[in-house]
């Protein structure tokens, strides 16, 4: 709170009665944004916009400036509909969870299952990470912990076949939500990216609309490489939403501003811990505020 108000004070003092923000203040703003992983290009974009606004609406007070800053940053974040498509025709609602290694996919699935269950929906998990050591056991523990069924095969089996089984079982049992866990993979590995495309295609054999959502999980402490992740996963699977994890740490996750701006994919969830309830719906204002608080 202290840093936040002092930064904003400094900013407003420096522009009070001026039609131009002075360089020192812009340097400070640049530092705040860059240190939050917003990246050079997006930072320049935000600063340009602030300069334009200041030039246009002269004589800004602290409050207006504060507001403008938040508005400009928030405007780069894509709009987010916080609900599942409730079209009954499209049942089950299938969410395929993808991302690079260790970002928090499996944990996010455990949390999502909790969230949906608490909304009164029925859920089934699909253990389509058949590669990483004890990945199935990990999801199995989550399934027991949050008391939702799991569909699994043995390690090393075809992930597409697991996904197929899961969706089929959901149809048969009239389950509302299907959560498909996939193995972590780096986006520059073509074969592994093709495997995702295949998983998607195979699920469509059971229900045409699957997956309703492709959720890309990004680690909040990731730097500029997250851009490339968003780009490549979008190319392979048409990512529809993002989850940013580990925001309970000191990282700010600013890279998602540029990603959201460029790919028009909304951030839907944030992860703030390792427990089943440590998932929140993304709130633009709260997220933006966190950049100016230390």
């Amino acid at each position, binding site marked *: 709170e202290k840093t936040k108000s002092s930064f904003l004070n400094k900013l407003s003092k420096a522009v009070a009665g001026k039609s131009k923000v002075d360089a020192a203040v812009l340097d400070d703003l640049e*530092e705040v944004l*860059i*240190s*939050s*992983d917003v*990246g*050079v*290009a997006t930072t320049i974009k935000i600063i340009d916009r602030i300069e334009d606004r200041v030039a246009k609406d002269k004589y800004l007070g602290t409050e207006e400036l504060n507001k403008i800053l938040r508005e400009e940053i928030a405007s780069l974040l894509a709009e987010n509909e916080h609900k599942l498509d409730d079209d009954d025709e499209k049942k089950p609602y299938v969410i395929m969870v993808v991302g*690079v*290694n*260790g*970002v*928090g996919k499996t944990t996010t699935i*455990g949390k999502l299952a909790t969230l949906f269950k608490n909304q009164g929906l029925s859920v089934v998990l699909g253990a389509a990470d058949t*590669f*990483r*050591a*004890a*990945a199935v*056991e*990990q999801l*199995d*523990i*989550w399934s027991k*912990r949050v008391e939702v069924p799991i569909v699994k095969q043995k390690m090393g089996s075809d992930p597409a076949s697991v996904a197929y089984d899961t969706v089929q079982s959901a149809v048969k049992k009239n389950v509302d939500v299907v959560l498909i866990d996939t193995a972590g993979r*780096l*986006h*520059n*590995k073509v074969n592994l990216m093709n495997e995702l495309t295949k998983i998607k295609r195979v699920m469509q054999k059971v229900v045409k609309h699957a997956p309703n959502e492709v959720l890309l999980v990004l*680690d909040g*402490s*990731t*730097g*500029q*490489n*997250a851009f*490339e992740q968003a780009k490549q996963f979008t190319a392979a699977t048409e990512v529809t939403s993002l989850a940013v994890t*580990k925001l*309970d*740490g*000191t*990282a*700010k996750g600013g*890279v998602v501003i540029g990603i959201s701006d460029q790919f028009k994919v909304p951030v839907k969830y944030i992860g703030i811990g*390792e427990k089943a309830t440590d998932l929140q719906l993304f709130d633009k204002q709260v997220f933006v505020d966190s950049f100016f608080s230390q």
Partner: protein
Amino acid sequence: MFDNLSDKLDNALHLLKGHGQITEVNVAETLKEVRRALVDADVNYKIAKTFTDTVKEKALGQNVLKTLKPGDLMVKIVKDELTELMGGDAEGLDLSGHPSIILMSGLQGSGKTTFSGKLANFLKKKKAKNPLLVAGDVYRPAAIDQLHVVGEQIDVEVFSDKEEKNPVKISERAIAHAKSNGFDVVIIDTAGRLAIDEVLMKEISSIHHTVKPNETLFVVDAMTGQDAVNTAKAFNDVLDYDGVVLTKLDGDTRGGAAISIKSVVDKPLKFIGTGEKMEALDVFHPSRMADRILGMGDVVSLVERA
């Protein structure tokens, strides 16, 4: 948009070329590009600033050789400084203990468990050691199973106790087990933790105090952004670790976090992880890393073109 530093420098250096001499005025634009490129490669913002200041000092202090154009000289200075910053060539591990104890530390998902397996495999195959893996993560679902699977893959014994919830006790018992069963290296895997999690930082500190490791390694994801400095420093404040392991370098990240970490804690970068398989471990090479951060070796060719 340029997509790597070499291009950026090449462009900025047009300003320098023709001047024949590096001056405060003509170097400014180049340094700004260098700084931006470093930040884009995830080098910490402040460290990138300090770095370009150093580069400037070097550039201004030197006479431009007749045979070199100022731009080429700049590139060489940047690359040399970066390499130097990252330290000398790969340092080994202290394996003088009986047994030698190696403790893993790091954030959630950084690659500790995988690296524990890789290191055990490396020591067994390349150093003729008889390592014991210890399952010290009592929190993450299936963490113990994961280490057992890894151990089976490389045929290394894993010490674990699913009933025991205290990793300090698990570690002590594992060391006793190692002593009486002829293991000469004990590798302790630990749970991922945030640097601001006081309870868990206290826990690893207490493991550290109790087992007195020969080597404490900080395992960090090479894709980490600006926060790398905070985390690296916070773990170092608690553990005073001996070396850093950078994982997931098989991706296309520039890995600027390596510079940030080295600058802030001044501990050697020892190993890199280059894949999910047990063989995917390499010793750290500062010059290769510098090339990567600067844009995958293009800078070297830029210098050679001169």
